[in-house]
Structure formats: C-alpha cells, structure tokens
C-alpha cells in the first residue's frame, strides 16, 4: 500500500493537478489556443516585419493600398490608410494581453490580501468588507474616467505617454476589479480557519503569519486562480472600453480594442477589419475562461482522481 503511494507523492501535487487538467478537453484546447495567440503576438512580429504604423509616403500608391481585401502581401488586408492589418493585430495584441495579465495580477494581489486579512482576522473583517462593498457600489466606468482624467498627464510626464498610460490603465483596472476575488477568498478563509489542521497548527503555537502562508494560502489557491482567469478577460474588455472613449492609449497606438473601434466606421465596406480584433478578443477571453474552468476542476481534490 505504502509502496503504491510513494511514487505518486514524489511527483508532487502539481503533477496530479496537471494530470487532472489534461483530462479536461475544453481546457486543453483553450490552453493550446492561448499559446498560439501568445506566439502570434510575441513571436509574430519577429517574422512579420512590417511597421504597424507605416503609411505609404507616395500618395498615389497610398490610395491604391487603402481598404485592401486579404491577399498574400497583406494576409489580413489593410486599413483605411493602407496600414497592414496583420502587423497592427500583432502589435495590438501585445498591449491587450499585457494589460490583461498585469491588471489581473494587480487585482488578484489586492483581492487576495484583503480577502485573507478579512477572513482570518475578525477585527479587520467588518472594516475590510465594508470597504469592499464601497468599491462594489462605485460605478466603475465613471471612476476609471476620473482616474484617467486626473492622473494621466501627471504620470505621462514622469514615465512618458506610453509607459505612463500603460501603468495607469493597469493600475486603474486592477484597483477597480479586486472585489469579487476578495469576497470569494474571505469566504474560503472563514471556512478554512475552523478546520482541524489550522486548529492543530494554532495549538502548537504557530504564529498567524505562518498559518496564513503555510496552511491558508495554498488552500485558497483554487478560487484565486479561477478569479484570476476571469480577471484577464474583464481587463482586456475594460481596456477596449477606455480606448473606445479616447481615454486609453494615444490614437496611433493600436490595441485590439482600438482596432475594433477604428474598424466600426468601415464595418459595411470592410467587415473583416472589425472581425479580426473582435475574434482575437473573443478567443482570448473564451480560452482564458476555459482554462479557469479546467484549473478549478484540477485544483479541487474532491473532484481530482474521480
């Protein structure tokens, strides 16, 4: 009996998670898809070396290059100024994916911290949860707009317009989307801290910090990861909204959201210009959601192994 268990333990808990994850077909397909998307935006520009903002200098040529349908020279066609859509999609995807990932990390960090503190320390619970309610009650879009409005110039002055806008957008989205994660984590922690292993740890005098890091955090990992994947999707969409309103990145800085916005004008004549970024956003969001789904199943020991 012990012999049978030993090799399994040696492989570690992550191997079991992975084994379970692999059984989730949707999640595996999504993981491959996301990998392809990431390769498209991060490795793609190394192979497809057209400048996304290149406009033909010769006017007569430029007019011939406008609104082209997909062809070998321009696999996704060109836009209303003759810029290559494939290059713009790759460049835009870098920004969108980076914003999504970093904003999610910010949101998860704040959410988990607040959730764990609220759940573990009774004294803080009321205060922190009222703070969470407060943030939940705030209308997010106006809040984001005000934040962009107040801090954009200041931050852009210090870090330059692009990095400054990136940081601000990421922080703004992060700061306004941590609440769900905090609530879920708090609920989990409330249940966990009454469990026997936590009581046992406490009875031998383990300090709170150690209990949280050693016993609580690993056990709330599963809801956190699920919240994280959902957060990426929300962040990509929020960035699109901000770009759409003219408060995101500068207008010559393509992101998937902005490409979508720019394409709307020509949706009747060149529908593909809306379809490409729309498809990319949808696929990213969908695959991230599926991965989250798969992770949740894989991380839950009660489902695992069944």
């Amino acid at each position: 009996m012990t012999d049978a268990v030993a090799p399994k333990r040696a492989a570690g808990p992550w191997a079991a998670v992975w084994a379970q994850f692999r059984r989730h077909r949707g999640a595996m397909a999504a993981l491959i898809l996301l990998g392809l998307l990431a390769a498209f935006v991060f490795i793609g520009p190394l192979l497809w070396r057209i400048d996304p903002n290149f406009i033909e200098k010769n006017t007569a040529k430029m007019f011939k290059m406008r609104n082209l349908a997909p062809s070998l020279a321009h696999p996704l066609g060109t836009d209303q100024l003759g810029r290559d859509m494939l290059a713009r999609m790759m460049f835009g995807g870098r920004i969108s994916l980076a914003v999504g990932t970093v904003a999610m990390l910010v949101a998860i960090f704040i959410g988990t911290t607040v959730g764990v503190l609220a759940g573990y320390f009774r004294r803080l619970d009321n205060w922190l949860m009222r703070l969470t309610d407060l943030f939940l009650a705030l209308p997010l879009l106006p809040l984001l707009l005000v934040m962009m409005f107040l801090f954009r110039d200041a931050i852009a002055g210090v870090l330059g317009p692009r990095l400054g806008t990136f940081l601000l957008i990421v922080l703004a989205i992060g700061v306004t989307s941590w609440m769900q994660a905090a609530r879920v984590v708090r609920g989990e922690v409330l249940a966990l801290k009454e469990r026997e292993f936590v009581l046992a740890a406490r009875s031998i005098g383990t300090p709170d910090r150690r209990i949280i890091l050693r016993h609580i955090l690993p056990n709330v990992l599963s809801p956190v990861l699920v919240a994280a994947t959902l957060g990426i999707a929300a962040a990509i969409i929020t960035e699109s909204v901000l770009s759409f309103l003219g408060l995101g990145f500068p207008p010559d800085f393509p992101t998937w959201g902005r490409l979508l916005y720019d394409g709307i004008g020509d949706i009747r004549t060149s529908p593909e210009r809306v379809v490409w970024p729309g498809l990319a956003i949808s696929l990213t969001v969908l695959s991230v959601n599926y991965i989250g789904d798969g992770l949740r199943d894989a991380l839950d020991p009660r489902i695992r192994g069944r």
Partner: protein
Amino acid sequence: MKLKTALLGAVAAFTLASAAHAERGSDGEVKIFYYQAVSTLNAYLSSGTKDVEAGSLVLEPLAGFDQDGNLFPRLAAEIPTAENGGISADQTQITWKLKDGLLWSDGTPVTSADVKFTWEYCTAPDGGCAQGAKYEGIKTIDTPDAQTVVITFEAPKPYPYQPFTGGTAPILQKAQFEACLGAAAASCTEQNSKPIGTGPFMVTDFKVNDVVTLEANPNYRDAAKPAFAKVTLKGGGDALAAASAVMETGEFDYAWNTQINPDQQAQMEAGGKGKFVNAFGTLVERIEINMTDPSADLPEGERSTVKHPHPILSDAKVRQAMSMAIDRQTLVDVGYGGAGRPTCNLVPAPAAYASDNTGCLTQDMEGAKKLLEEAGWVDTDGDGIREKDGKKLSILYQTTVNPVRQDFQALVKGWWNEAGIEVELKSIDPGVFFGGDAGSPDTFQKFYADVEMYANNFDGTDPEPYMAQYLCDKIPGPDNQWQGENINRFCDPAYDAMLKELSTTGDLTKRGDLVKKMNDMLTKDSNVIIPLVDRGRFSAQSNSLGGFVMNSWDTELWNAQDWTRVK
C-alpha cells in the same frame, strides 16, 4: 398611369402637408441629433457651435442670415439701412425697431430694455462672454421707447450689423438674467439651461451634455408656427452614429455635422431614409500652433500662458516647415471627398474677403527639411528626429475623437516624422474638448498641447469679429476663466492696428484688402494657423423632414419654425 398615380399621391401629400402647416404643433415631434452634446443654451457662455445652434431654437437675435448670406429681420421690424434712415449719415449710429406685439415665451412683452441689457450682459467685466467680439466698439445703447434701440458706436462703423445679428448674438430676457451679470454668469445654471426666449420653441427639460426637450412656444409671433409640437435634441455618440440614425435607421430627423469619410457617405445614402446636405461657408479645419509653452513642468496657471513663449514653435521657420510638409489634397480625398476642398486661408469666403493665397497647396517636403536645417534643427544622433541644443524636436498634437480627425492625425504625423519631427498624438472626447469647462485641462482654450486641430468658422458674412479673435487682449488665461478666443496666443501690435483700421474703414474693397492682409499675416506669413481643409457644412436630413434649408451663414437650425413633417 403609374406616373399619374404618383402625381396624384404627391398632390395629396402636398395638400395634407399644407393643411398641417396651418396649425401650430400639428406635426408631432421632431428629433434632432447633435452628437456633441449640448452643455448650455446660452450662446454667450460657450464658444462651441453646438451650444450656439441649440440655443438658437429658443433665443433669437434682431436679425439673422438666410442661406445666401443676406440679413433678414427676426425680432426687428426691418433691416435698418442708410436709405430707410436706420443708419446715420456719419455711420456711428444704427436704429433698430422691434416688431409690434412681441412676447417672450412667458407672456411678458419684449422691449428695447432687453436688447440693451443683452449688451450689458456680454460686456460686463469678469463675465467671460464668449461672443464679446460681436459687441466691439459700442459706445452706448439708448432706448428712447420700448420699441426702439439706438446703438451708438465709438467710431464710424462701416458694417454696423454685428451686434444682435446671427445665432451667436441672441437677445436675453432682462428679467431673467438680471442677477447673472459679470462673474455670476456661469453660476446661473437655471437661467443658462432654461432661457426664456422668443424663438419657435421653449425648453421643458435640460439634461446637461445629454438631452434637451423643447416644446412649441405658445407665444411665438406667427400663430401658425412652428408645425412641430415637440423637439428632442439628443447628444452623445459620434458622427457615424449620428449619420446612421438619420440615414439608415430613421430614428432621427436631422443630424448635425455628420463628418464621415467619403466611402461611408455613399454607403449611408444607399440607406434611402435621408440625404446629406451641404453648403460651403467659412468653416476651415486647421492646425492651431501654440505660441506659449504648454509644458507640464510649469506650475498650473502658467502653462500655456503668455508668460512662457513656446521653446520650439516660437520660431516661424519651424511653423512654416510644418505647413509645407502637409499634402492637403490627400487629406481632402481621405477625409471629406466632395464635402471639402484644400485651402491656405483662414477666411475662405465670401469671395470679397478671400485671399488668393494658394502657396501651400503643393506639398514641399524637401523645402520643409531645408527650412528646419536653417532654423538649426539637425538630426545629430541619427534617430530620425532633429535636435537643437540638446532638445528634441518633439510635439504633442491633440484633437477630438473623430474618425476623420484620427486619420488626419496619422497622415500628418507621417509627414512630420518624415521631416524629422517627433509627434505624439492625443484624442479627446469632443464634449470635453469644446465644453469650455475652466476646470478641465483638456479644453481647446486651455491648449495644453503644442498643436491642436479643429474647425471653426464665423457667422454672418462680415469677418471683422472673427479677425478680432486674434487680438492680444483676447488671449485665454486663468484671469479670464480661459474664455478668450485667441487660441494661439498670437499677439502682434501691427495686427491689432490693422484691426483698428478695419473697424473704421467703410469702403468694401478696402475692407476686403485689409481682411486679406490680416488673413495672410496669420497664415502664410507667420503660419501661426495652418489651414488644411475648407469644409462645407455637412449634415444629414431625413426624407420625412420638410422645409429644411441648409445654411452656412447662420445656425443650421435657423428656420426650425418652418420645418414640417412630410406625410
């Protein structure tokens, strides 16, 4: 047979329409779309065309301009001329007579005191009146009786029709605005959003930057007008949505300023629910150069003020190079098609005032590069951007969120990059950009950028007030709540002197020559303003809206009282 039926149908429709014509409020509701939402109905507190035009449904001047640019009486009984004795022989006095029996929408009579008060309102110190140029040079206004207004000018006024004409100079009710003089003007929210007027409609509800609801004015002077009982004036969205709402979905009857690209124009017209209407006037899309330093390093209240001249753009050669690098015909072809034409002038019309300045129409990239070299801007480190004394030739170029303007930004940026100028782009929500809110850093008056692009025009046919915007004392700044009209912070005593001369010159040819010279001073001589495209007014009108006449010399809603529903 078919033709006959169609003709009969047309006759029947006409009879119905004219029958409906005879009664006020019989045609139901008319829906108007101003995608730049309206923020005030008081034309004196906003330099945005959208506010002036929306206000013109309610407030009226003494006289307006028709589609050909001719004056016609609104509140006045007739247009004063030297022949009918309305203008004194020495050209210092003009006497307006009000129509008999005029009533405000609240039922009280309109008197000459209201007219006089309007002048006092706009010229009150600290009021930040946006239309101050209309009231330049008035010495006194006398009201010998309740119907008569005598305007005396400080000097002979060859063109005495500036005050109280056109949509930008409407008459306010004294009783309502008495408490709003001077610094109190902006805080009179109730008055500014629900002014009592004489126009065909009166405000029932006003949601700032959203919707204005109006209904027929029961005291309008023509008992049979307006045909519409209700007006909904909706804001928000963009030009494309506005055009689509009229041309394709038919939700709205009229959409203002539907600037969309030529391909889309054809597409929309295929929708069959409406048509585009245009008229060439004086609207010029231009790049305005900031003559003062907008740097964020300066303390608030000193950015973009005359205290700090612009470190790069104060040099005329740089400005000229920027103008030469632009290919205006390409801009027209990409952005406007038939609704625009390239121009080098700030005043492209009327013909008597338009300079023959065409030097900028051909792009000269090599010339632009040469000029920059001459000015000392050389690319020393090979990164494609010129430097001088360790400072990079880098500028911030802002405009509103608008598909055509974003295309212009991308194209102009491309040309400037080629000339060795680094360009950073910024686009701002049009409601904010033109909103005139002194608290916002993103208004066009504050101009916290190096160059900005928008369009402006003058109403009426006389460019004098328009030229007066570029006087030294019209520079916006914190001391006048950023309400001045001299957006560029241009200041030249020679220019001020010429304007003074213009205001005393009666001879029309001489006036024309002066305006042309001043136009050239601002454009080809100094390149403080880089005109790009002469734009026709371009709006969308539903096929079911009758009586609409496009006007490029006054507000587009100038004849809303004559609108009907085509049945």
